């Protein structure tokens, strides 16, 4: 079969197109970068969509707010409605939240508020660990709940916020596929394992049908095992060392690739 076409939407100010394209290619998909000035009709030609990270529209008003109102994202919402997969990473996640595509169905329900961190404020970039939760999300389907994936975060507004009780409800409903984890693999409660103060350590939210995922950490930056942060311990670090001693020359598949592999599996690509 020909590789399914995936649109990487280049809104003005996004800056993670290249590595997102590379991750998609590595799992057997055919990514294409198109600019915000594209004809919305063309969205029909794609099997899935990715909103990459960056600073779309300069984060004016609120991160993601202007992009959510753009013609391209409105057209994308219609495609998501048809069940096509949509992945929003970092600023892309902020766009999906501002557009009400997650948790979905009831307008804009959540916000990504400013990070809350002891002794510091604003933008924060670091590697953290994520724990897979039981969910219906197609991007994490096939990964055992409780599995830990190390990955970087890099944002100033990543604290998921909803009406009282709403985040717990989403978690119970299987709409929180990833949470920040502490070194023991449990949901994190403290900085720096919890990098932004997100309620219930929520790192990503999906819609009930599981085809739209808003994820604050950057899986595309964790696609090379050789590039794994040196602070990471556990099975991924051990696998890196094992390959190294074997003399492997290629970078190896990193933990972030798992998220893209979920998409590929859903679209019928077998690795």
């Amino acid at each position: 079969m020909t590789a399914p076409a995936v649109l990487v939407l280049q809104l003005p100010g996004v800056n993670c197109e290249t590595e997102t394209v590379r991750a998609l290619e590595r799992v057997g998909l055919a990514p294409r970068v198109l600019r915000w000035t594209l004809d919305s009709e063309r969205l029909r030609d794609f099997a899935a969509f990715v909103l990459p990270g960056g600073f779309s529209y300069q984060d004016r008003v609120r991160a993601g707010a202007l992009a959510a109102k753009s013609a391209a994202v409105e057209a994308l919402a219609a495609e998501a409605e048809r069940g096509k997969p949509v992945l929003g990473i970092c600023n892309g996640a902020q766009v999906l939240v501002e557009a009400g595509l997650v948790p979905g169905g009831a307008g804009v329900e959540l916000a990504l508020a400013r990070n809350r961190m002891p002794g510091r404020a604003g933008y924060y970039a670091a590697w953290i660990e994520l724990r897979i939760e039981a969910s219906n999300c197609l991007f994490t389907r096939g990964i055992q709940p409780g599995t830990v994936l190390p990955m970087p975060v890099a944002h100033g507004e990543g604290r998921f916020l909803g009406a009282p009780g709403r985040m717990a409800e989403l978690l119970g409903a299987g709409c929180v596929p990833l949470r920040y984890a502490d070194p023991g693999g449990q949901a994190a409660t403290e900085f720096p394992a919890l990098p932004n103060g997100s309620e219930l350590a929520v790192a990503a939210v999906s819609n009930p049908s599981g085809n739209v995922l808003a994820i604050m950490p950057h899986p595309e930056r964790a696609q090379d095992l050789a590039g794994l942060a040196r602070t990471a311990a556990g099975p991924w670090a051990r696998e890196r060392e094992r390959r190294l001693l074997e003399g492997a020359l290629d970078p190896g598949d990193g933990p972030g690739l798992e998220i893209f592999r979920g998409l590929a599996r859903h679209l019928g690509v077998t690795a």
Partner: protein
Amino acid sequence: MTLLGAATRAYTLEQARDPGAVSRALAARGIALDAEEVTLLPALLGRAPLEAEAVLFGILWSEHCSYKSTRALLRRLPSAAPQVLIGPGEDAGVVALPVPCQDLALVLAHESHNHPSQVLPVEGAATGVGGIVRDVVCMGATVAGVLDALRFGDPAAAVHVRDVIRGVVEGIAGYGNPLGVPNLGGDTCFDERFDGAVLVNVMAVGIAPRDGVLRSRVPDGAGPWVFVLVGKPTDDSGFGGAAFASGTLDHDGDRRGAVQLPDPFLARVLNVANEEAFARVRARGVRAGLKDLGAGGVACAVSELAAAGGRGAELVLDDLHRVARELPPEVLLCAETQERYCWVVPEAFAAELCGIYEREFALGDVHPGAGARVIGRATTARRFRVTWRDVVVVDCDVDAITAGRRIARPSRRRVPAAPRKLRRPHPDPRGALLALLGSVNGGARDYLFRHYDSEVQGRTWLRPGEGDAALFVPAPGRNLGVALAVGGNPWWCDADPELGARHAVAEAARKVACTGGRPWALTDCLNSGSPEDPLVMGEFEATLEGLAVAAEALGGLAAPGAALPFVSGNVSLYNQTGTRAIPPSPIVMCAGVVKEPAAAPGIATGEPGAFLVLVGEPRDTLTGSAYVRTVMHESLAGAPPAIDLGHEARLEELAVLAAEGRWVRAAHAVGDGGLAVALAEMLLAGSGLAGIDVDLGPLDSALAPALFSERPGIVFEVRAERAARFYHAARERRLLAWPLGTTVTTPGLRIRAAESGMLEWSVAELRAAHAAPLERIWNEAVT
């Protein structure tokens, strides 16, 4: 009708008879021509200068643009080696990469943005990043990383010093993060001598197709060639910036207007549009030149493009896209509005090129008034002629513009400091290590790095703090890495400028070698005080001598027998307030080629059971050390330790072989704070779940120098099953290798010595001490 006579003259020939008075009158209007230059300019033009001409030459002859005090001396630096494609002289240097990236070139640039960052820290640092990125982009490259070397004042001194620190970090993050260029680290020092004169050096690295490097010149051939200005609409921001950067910081008046204004959002879209233009130019075989707009704005960019191509230029200021308010022609010509580039392309291609920026990327939607316009044409006559509303405002020989200016400055060498001998008893070594880790110069840089996006583009494999050098892969999927590190110890360069400069080169190269990088090319920025002070010039000459001697000795891992070439650099003078100059502060960046990037050692120790081995010079002196400054509280720490450059070359070779052979998991150069700090840093850089057990017995040295000497050396974490190969290679290179201990499962750092018995530190107390100093600066509890 163009009438020369209709434009305003800056001064008459009559007035020029009192050049001092003219110079002062011009200075009051923001034009920087000294008395000698006031006489020189009419002689060069053959008539009295027009207003815009005086402004233009004031910029061209500024220290910032002309290097008039230092250019002749800079020839001392080696710049030739087989891998060099373009050496110093353009906006950036270019070196070839080896197989499997032989079709790619590495582009390197290094600049300072010291004066602006002192006056407006956020904007100054941000536009510093913007400027250095443009220097690399205009070679046709994709920028793959920026680094910064920062010399701050003492944070305990005054709130304005802390404001500068916080502002500079905010500026670097605020520009680099949206731009989508990873921050690959650099270094940071704090000393009271930078209280009123911060140093913000910025470096950028890019990747270009080897046969697609663009030059900043009108190409050969008939053309006809036109100049296309792209980016932000010209305004009056940064007007006078070059002159500002060429004076001391203590003159009267508010100089904030001379600092440029940044817009990283526009810069990002502009960069993506540039990539499209590069692709189009290459695919179609269009010959083109490109230059970024920096000091001197449109005037310098266009005249330099023309002169470098052996042409002249005719420029019509009316055609510039600009802000709505009325601006005089000299401002349109010389303002340093950010986020602009100037292309020179065949006239037939100009419409398509403008279309990329104006329509396909809709720059006008991104920033009001931004776009692309044809603003002039290249001429065979070698004249630079500028008109504004049909009046000629500049008309001179192109060669007059590029001829530059030289000033011979008297210099006087001072006697370097002597090595320091300590006579007082040493304090408790356990507390000494915690004091060093808890000092502002020894504290963790992590707090600062967390402000920066260091892995956008998804190809950073060693982030700042993870390795002695940062590492990225220029072409993901191909087995090659590039390592980057910075060197320059301000206290050592102060005590002995020549020896300090040798160490600066060696330090940068050694850090690169620790990550498995073969030192491949250098860049530098020489930060100093006023060149009018003979002692400053003496320090400058000594610095160049030290840099050159070290570079000549350390190029062998790239090309046997060749020097390690300086391919790009910058000089920043007048870093002083009143008579108080900064210490001579050369800052050196080394780029290295990593043949086995997947095996690049970081500094973090890993699984238990590996050997810790120190390789280097004997631990027999504390001179120049952070221990003397910080723990013994001696303000004059004495000369830097000696360095044997032949030994250094062999040490770096061992580090590279050890990495490429996968014999070592971690490698960390012994730097500020000596062996004890190096071991603590190796422990803290990891997961914190393991420990280090070390015995100093093999060093056969007194306790304090064993722990804290800063003589050159590297601590390796050697994989037990490959230790024999490691020791053999060290012996072959006549290197002393001391087996000190092992990594263990019990967390913590334990050091045994005959003098002290067992010293032990928990991970938690080391981490708390290490993290505190920088965190305090951001939380205003500085003591």
